[in-house]
């Protein structure tokens, strides 16, 4: 108490010096608080996003391993539905769904919808250069979400390279027919991208040839709920299938967004949804009707395992190995990949904040130590008097360190308070700048390839462009451009106090070393 009281008295009696050191510590504390807050924002945003995210997983052939081992990627056969269902029994799996996607042509006057003249001209033929195979959960855009093809028997006709990645041997049609195993598989509907506007969604267990079509397609062909549409095998226009329209949906996603991906998929308005059983009925019938397996309608199977969390995902990876998954296949998560991409801006900002913090603390420590040395020299006479009248040197050192600690605490409170007040807007400002630069870089890359410049990972762009949105809910595919909560929490406050304590210890140690070196007789006799 004596030391503290004396320290506070000394501080109040030496206002100029106290103010100078106090301002320095306040500036250091303020800067440190901003740096720590930005770093904390990155951490907490990452944790919160991961906690909110429902992680899904896919099993795909490990093409990287195949290439590195000198094998052709096609050496690994696609897994069958029964095999995929076997892995759904893994303990980490909360739910399992799948879709099959096929490409068909219109028949009986059914025209594909297009919102551009160039697209219209390309649709005059029986096939389109902008064909799509991506369904609601078809995740063909990234290597880690490559789809599984159960049959690839169609012959190639008019494929200019913009179709399926595995387009060889498969004929593209004007329409994408998606067969869903359950409501969860219809991710465009569960995520809110698509909504039924008239009629109702079919029962996903049905084998009846029923479907839902887009509002644009319905308008272009004057179709209503209850109408029947006819789809044909792209390889055989005589092989047709009639589907009854039971619902018409509205898709909020624009064609430009959907077509911006590397594969340049077709207009989403030409996506027709049916049940998995109905689609299987069509492909089975086509196989029987086709003269050879290469001309039958093929479908691509996409299986998704909902594992919930990151830990669930890691468990799933080990469990499928136990269940016998070959090393030629790998477990991936489009959600995590998409999340990592979206969180990159925060990570980059956190790194910058870390370096900023180190620089600030280093400069602050150097300045504070120098000030402390000069201050101690300036107060040499005081040290001499105190020790001459019997105050122990270590007590004098404690007194000086306590003065410094009191200033550091005040500086931490004031600087930390101001830092806390401005950390959120500063973080958001920096975040938006970093994010904007990343988006700009992506756009430049897209433009360099002559594609639409809408960036991958931009809000609303991910679903049908092939950038994967396989999660049933809340895939964090968009850039994190702002934080909603103030990042200055108890942890940051502790870190800030720790930083100020570190500075105090550094400066105090130098000061104490000087004090212990001084001899009162030398000081008072003017020899030091």
């Amino acid at each position, binding site marked *: 108490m*004596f030391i503290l009281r*004396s320290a506070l*008295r*000394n501080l109040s*009696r*030496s206002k100029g010096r106290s103010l100078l050191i106090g301002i320095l510590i306040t500036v250091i504390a303020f800067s440190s608080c901003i740096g720590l807050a930005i770093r904390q924002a990155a951490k907490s945003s990452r944790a919160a996003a991961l906690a909110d995210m429902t992680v899904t997983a896919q099993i795909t052939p490990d093409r990287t391993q195949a290439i590195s081992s000198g094998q052709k990627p096609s050496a690994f056969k696609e897994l069958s539905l029964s095999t995929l269902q076997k892995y759904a029994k893994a303990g980490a799996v909360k739910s399992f769904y799948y879709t099959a996607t096929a490409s068909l042509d219109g028949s009986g006057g059914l025209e594909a919808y297009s919102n551009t003249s160039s697209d219209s001209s390309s649709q005059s033929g029986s096939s389109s250069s902008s064909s799509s195979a991506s369904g609601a959960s078809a995740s063909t855009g990234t290597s880690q979400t490559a789809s599984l093809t159960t049959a690839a028997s169609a012959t190639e006709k008019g494929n200019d390279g913009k179709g399926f990645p595995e387009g060889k041997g498969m004929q593209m049609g004007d329409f994408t027919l998606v067969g869903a195993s359950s409501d969860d598989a219809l991710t465009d509907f569960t995520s809110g991208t698509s909504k039924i506007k008239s009629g109702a969604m079919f029962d996903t267990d049905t084998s009846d040839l029923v479907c839902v079509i887009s509002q644009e397609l319905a308008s272009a062909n004057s179709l209503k709920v209850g109408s029947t549409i006819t789809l044909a095998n792209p390889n055989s226009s005589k092989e047709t299938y009639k589907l009854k329209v039971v619902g018409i949906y509205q898709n909020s996603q624009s064609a430009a967004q959907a077509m911006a991906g590397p594969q340049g998929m077709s207009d989403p308005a030409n996506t027709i949804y049916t049940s998995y059983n109905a689609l299987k009925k069509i492909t089975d019938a086509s196989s029987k009707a086709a003269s050879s397996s290469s001309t039958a309608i093929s479908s691509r199977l996409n299986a998704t395992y909902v594992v919930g969390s990151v830990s669930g995902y890691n468990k799933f990876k080990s469990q499928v190995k136990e269940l016998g998954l070959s090393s030629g296949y790998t477990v991936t998560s489009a959600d995590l990949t998409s999340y990592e991409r979206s969180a990159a801006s925060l990570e980059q900002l956190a790194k910058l904040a870390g370096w900023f913090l180190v620089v600030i603390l280093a400069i602050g420590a150097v300045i504070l130590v120098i000030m402390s040395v000069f201050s101690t020299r300036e107060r040499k006479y*005081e040290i*001499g*008097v*105190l*020790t*001459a*009248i*019997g*105050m*122990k040197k270590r*007590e004098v050192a404690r007194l000086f360190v306590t003065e410094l600690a009191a200033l550091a605490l005040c500086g931490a409170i004031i600087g930390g308070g101001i830092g806390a007040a401005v950390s959120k807007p500063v973080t958001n400002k920096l975040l938006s700048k970093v994010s904007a630069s990343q988006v700009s870089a992506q756009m430049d890359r897209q433009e360099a390839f002559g594609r639409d410049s809408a960036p991958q990972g931009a809000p609303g762009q991910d679903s049908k462009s092939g950038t994967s949105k396989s999660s049933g809910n809340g895939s964090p595919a968009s850039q994190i451009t702002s934080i909603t909560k103030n990042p200055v929490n108890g942890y940051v406050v502790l870190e800030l106090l720790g930083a100020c304590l570190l500075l105090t210890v550094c400066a105090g140690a130098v000061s104490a070393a000087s004090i212990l070196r001084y*001899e*009162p*007789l030398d000081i*008072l*006799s003017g020899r030091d």
Partner: protein
Amino acid sequence: MLKENVEKLMPETSADAVPAPSPRELVRLDRLCYSYGSHQVLKNISASFLAGKIYAIVGRSGAGKTTLLSVMSGLTDPTSGSLYVNGEDIRKEDKYIYRSHTVGVIFQSYNLLNKLTALENVVLSMEISLRNQGTHYDRAALQEEARRLLDRVGLTPDEMDRRVLKLSGGQQQRVAIARALACQPDILLADEPTGSLDQETQAEIMTLLKDLAREGKCVIIVTHSPEVAGMADEQITLTQAKKTA
């Protein structure tokens, strides 16, 4: 009391034997020497100082008066020889306790803490002394005692609460005396206590020191002033590392 050849007066003792102090002897110097490097300032100083007397140490500049006072105040150790206080060799004592409790020192340039008031200077000295002894204290009681001491040395209540920089030289000297008395020492060491004071104040300070001696304290003054030396009970002259009575 002081002899030119002290060794003749001292009983033959072994090197480790501690001479027994006389009942009123507070300080004894035994063949005390002090050197700054190769330059010997004090050589074989032997003397004893009794309670209730004022001693004036005089001598030419460079004779070692202030050095002797520094050794006696515990600010530095003798190069050789011994200094006994109350029969104890101060080498074996805690220097901080010695400086804050056993002796009171009035420095030539006062050596007050300029940012503090006169009262705070005195209270601080009391607190340091009591803390070194591990004694709990009531700060309010210390302040009361400090006011009493400052009142005794002639400071008004207003002057007590003034920062020492705003006090005159004479007032600062009084504060320095009050601070030296704060720990109730038996020995009072004063280095030129009236050096920069006018005649009237000088007389007042000397009267005060005489009063303290009459109360039983041993007052040792280093001075150049023949007037001050004349007011002492005994004079000690240091000449080139030698002393004469």
